């Protein structure tokens, strides 16, 4: 009996976090329609860490983030940068020591779409269902 109870408790402990974690929608990484560069997942990580700073044509890459703590931002950091935002704060402290600041943020995914559609150097991420023909999708990030 005790063994059954313990077994059930163990199953619950393993299942509950998975069941309670909200699933983020699939994300699309978007750039300006005129841009034809390819971006791998690793490239994208280097862009958002501000290590990769230039497109292939020598123009500066302008990465855009959503505000810290928002579910899409958290999901993006986990999927692409493989780090939590707390962990990244330490990384940005060290970059600040060299005058390098984290990517700028925009308040909403609609603002990201508008900005990317207007700036040939920008790259951003938005939920896949929100993508329209004003931008080009260069990468899909599954949920």
């Amino acid at each position, binding site marked *: 009996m005790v063994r059954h109870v313990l077994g059930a408790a163990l199953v619950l402990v393993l299942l509950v976090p998975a069941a309670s974690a909200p699933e983020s929608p699939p994300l699309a990484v978007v750039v300006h329609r005129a841009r034809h560069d390819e971006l791998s*997942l690793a490239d994208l990580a*280097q862009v958002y860490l501000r290590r990769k700073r230039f497109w292939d044509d020598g123009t500066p890459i302008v990465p*855009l983030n959503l505000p810290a703590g928002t579910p899409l931002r958290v999901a993006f950091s986990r999927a692409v940068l493989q780090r939590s935002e707390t962990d990244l704060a330490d990384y940005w402290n060290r970059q*600040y020591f060299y005058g390098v600041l984290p990517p*700028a943020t*925009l308040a909403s995914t609609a603002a990201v779409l508008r*900005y990317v559609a207007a700036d040939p150097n920008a790259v951003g991420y938005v939920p896949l269902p929100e993508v329209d023909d004003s931008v080009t999708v260069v990468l899909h990030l599954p949920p």
Partner: protein
Amino acid sequence: MLATRVSLVALMLLGCVAVAVAADPDTTTYPRREGPELLGADTPIGRLEYVPGRGLTVGRTNLTIGGFTTVAGAWLEGGHGEVQLDNANFFLFWDPLPWVHVFSEIELTRLAEWDTDRAHAHSAPGIDVDRLYVDVGKADILNLRFGRFLTPIGRWNQVLADPLVWTTSEPLIVEDVFDETMRGAMLWGTTFPRGGAFSYGLYGTFLDSIHHEDQAQHSAGARLEWASLAGWTVGASYFASQRTGQRWHHLGGVDALWRPHERVELSMEAVSGEGSQAAGHEWGLYAQGVVEMVRTLYAVGRYEHFDPAEHDQRAHDLVVVGLTWVPRYYLRLKADYRIADHRDDLSAPGLRMSFSILF
């Protein structure tokens, strides 16, 4: 000192020019800076934004002002104690063009100090230009840095600010072997094979010292580093130096950092050879571990071995154990104890505490 003043004035003038040429932003989609804005104001030159630990951005000038400061205290074995507001360091950095980055770090030194050897607090303020350089480059693979910059040996010497490191004191191999800064030029760049970042730096000294420091007259070196996205980094450094009238010295080093888990950081550095601070072979290493025990509170442990060049000095074996509290990403409170196998000016065992703010 004259060169410093001229450089500062030039930076200010260039900032004014940048205001004039900066484009108006689209206010409907204008990106904001990352982090909690503590102060903000709209002005004719754009929005002034202050984010703690990320500095004050001056409108559309692309100029940012920030820095850090530390209050530190030490109670050493043997009875000596001191408390000091050691320094305040100011960063000024400016990106007038996408491919030009100007960076300076100006240090106000010896602001206030009290120690047990004197009856009262004393102060002897001074100004040092710790770093002043310009980076130019239109591709990640090739950039030129020109000016005064931190010597790229190992990991610690490249993040020398108190709010960025885990202990109150530097490892002896960082403090006592090579010159902290260079005055010259460096070719540097990064490429991204197999998902990681492979960086290089090739540098040499050819500018005169602006502080008349006790540094090598000539020096040159190279650094290679591989950083994976999975959380580990390895690096190798070579440094050659020559003091006036002396032969060339050669020093090599390796370093590594591994983050097997978000709450664990392991790092090490080792150097061997002849550095720029003394003649004769010396070698040393440190290995450090950091574990986040509970949220924002970290336990830190470091072992050091240092065999100095001077034959009349014994090798040092040190252990540093301590706690670091990081209540916000820009605040760091540290307390650690250095245990030494013997006591002298270099090992200086005892309790140290510090409180640092990145602003």
